């Protein structure tokens, strides 16, 4: 329960902080819109030449895009700002302040920052997803919605674990800011279903950078492609990643010597 109280407190502080800068909302909205327009143009171009891309129809790909935008918003709203702050603090040696607090350090470093304006992307993604579902002839049933909900939570947790491990790398090599660039690039690949990529890239996007789990699999849930076996597999892999990332974090923490103390 403490965990949720802590998260709520930080969420409120973060939200109040961001609400000071309302002009940023307009900017963020513009950025989201431009990204959306670019994505839609890409989709439209592809479908002037063909009627299906690797077995996915136009409205199904729109659903993938919706999930991609939504998940991207969640990552930039919650995961990425926290990890960026952690990287900075490891570099500066100011992580001491977080470590000396009477809470689990991993929890603390994971909930301190929130960028609420990124909510625009989350909302936009949801809208796109709903439009896509509306366009699909089949529609979606209750069971699909449940599958989607589970898949999206698992996907988010996997991305979190992945980010945490990347960031923990900061304990050994302090210059890791370009990692964000690297992740952004790879995340872009999730705009299309990973099935279209060659084997080596698909494997990378599934197990090394869990973009497939975060975007393609939730999208498979709403397009009636997801099997219970895959979902179970995703669950096992999520647990595995969570345990692994916590272990890596603990080992990394021992590496940290601080600067102010």
């Amino acid at each position, binding site marked *: 329960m403490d965990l949720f109280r802590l998260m709520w407190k930080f969420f409120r502080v973060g939200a109040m902080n961001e609400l000071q800068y309302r002009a940023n909302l307009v900017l963020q909205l*513009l950025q989201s819109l431009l990204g959306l327009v670019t994505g839609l143009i890409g989709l439209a171009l592809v479908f002037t030449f063909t009627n299906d891309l690797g077995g996915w129809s136009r409205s199904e790909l729109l659903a993938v895009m919706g999930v991609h935008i939504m998940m991207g918003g969640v990552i930039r709203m919650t995961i990425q700002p926290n990890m960026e702050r952690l990287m900075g603090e490891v570099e500066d040696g100011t992580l001491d302040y977080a470590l000396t607090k009477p809470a689990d350090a991993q929890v603390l470093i994971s909930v301190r920052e929130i960028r609420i304006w990124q909510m625009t992307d989350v909302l936009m993604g949801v809208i796109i997803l709903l439009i896509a579902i509306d366009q699909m002839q089949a529609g979606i049933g209750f069971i699909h919605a449940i599958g989607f909900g589970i898949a999206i939570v698992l996907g988010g947790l996997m991305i979190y674990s992945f980010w945490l491990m990347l960031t923990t790398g900061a304990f050994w090599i302090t210059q890791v800011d*370009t990692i964000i*660039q690297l992740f952004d690039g790879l995340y872009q690949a999730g705009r299309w279903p990973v099935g279209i990529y060659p084997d080596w890239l698909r494997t990378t996007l599934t197990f090394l950078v869990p973009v497939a789990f975060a975007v393609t699999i939730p999208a498979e849930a709403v397009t009636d492609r997801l099997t219970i076996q895959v979902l179970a597999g995703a669950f096992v892999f999520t647990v595995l990643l969570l345990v692994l990332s916590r272990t890596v974090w603990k080992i990394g923490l021992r590496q940290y010597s601080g600067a102010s103390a």
Partner: protein
Amino acid sequence: MKSTIRMYLGYMRLSILQQFQYPVRNYFYMVGMIAEPIIYLVVWQTVARARGGAVGGFTAGEIAAYYIVWTLVRNMNIVLTPYAWENRIQRGQLSGQLLRPIHPLHIDLAYFTGWKFVVIAMWLPIAAVLILVFQPAIQLSLGNVAAFVIALWGGFLVRFMLQWALGMLSFWTTRVNAVFQLYFTIELLLSGRFVPLSFLPDWAQSIAGWLPFKWAFGYPIEVILGRWSPQEIFFGFAMQAVWVLIGLAIIALVWRAGVSRFSSVGN
């Protein structure tokens, strides 16, 4: 003249040394950028195969070639961004540069030119891997390669000048982010970076013809792929020259007015 050349060589050496200091960082950066063209490449190859081999006049192998050359052009296209300009002005760093006896344009140009040699050296192994993986179809001829080298540097100059000119907007307002983003989106779509321009509808292609973007991006790529006749190639050089001159003219006109508005805080 002689001292200008010495200045250029000096700054170029400086940037080469600086950039080789962070090889890992530079590589991560470049690898992160590789994801974008690979995505386009795979998507369009899938489309080409679904259509039985070609799309918009490109076979699957030619699409691979297009996007592999793309990676070099993209790296050559990185210049001083308007965001860096914004930073410079907001933090007052420009005042230090104004004190030097030469125009800051020279310093930036020399610095980025030097950096490009580092970029090209680091690009070669990446290109080798991409060629092995994606099997591009390309017929190189000596003439096209030579023209490509010129077009590549010409494209760098076009983009350098225009971005520098755009960045000067920051003299008047410190909230120009929105303008930049709009500009970059149009550039992305109409330069040949997003897709080869021949994939676009005709009206979009004719708009692209009136804008500078394709001369910095799509044009050099298509030159080395052998898609342009010699006359067209020379026309391209001329267009690059025109746009560089337009950029320089804007810079010359706006610079004085801009600097007189600039007041720095702190130093």
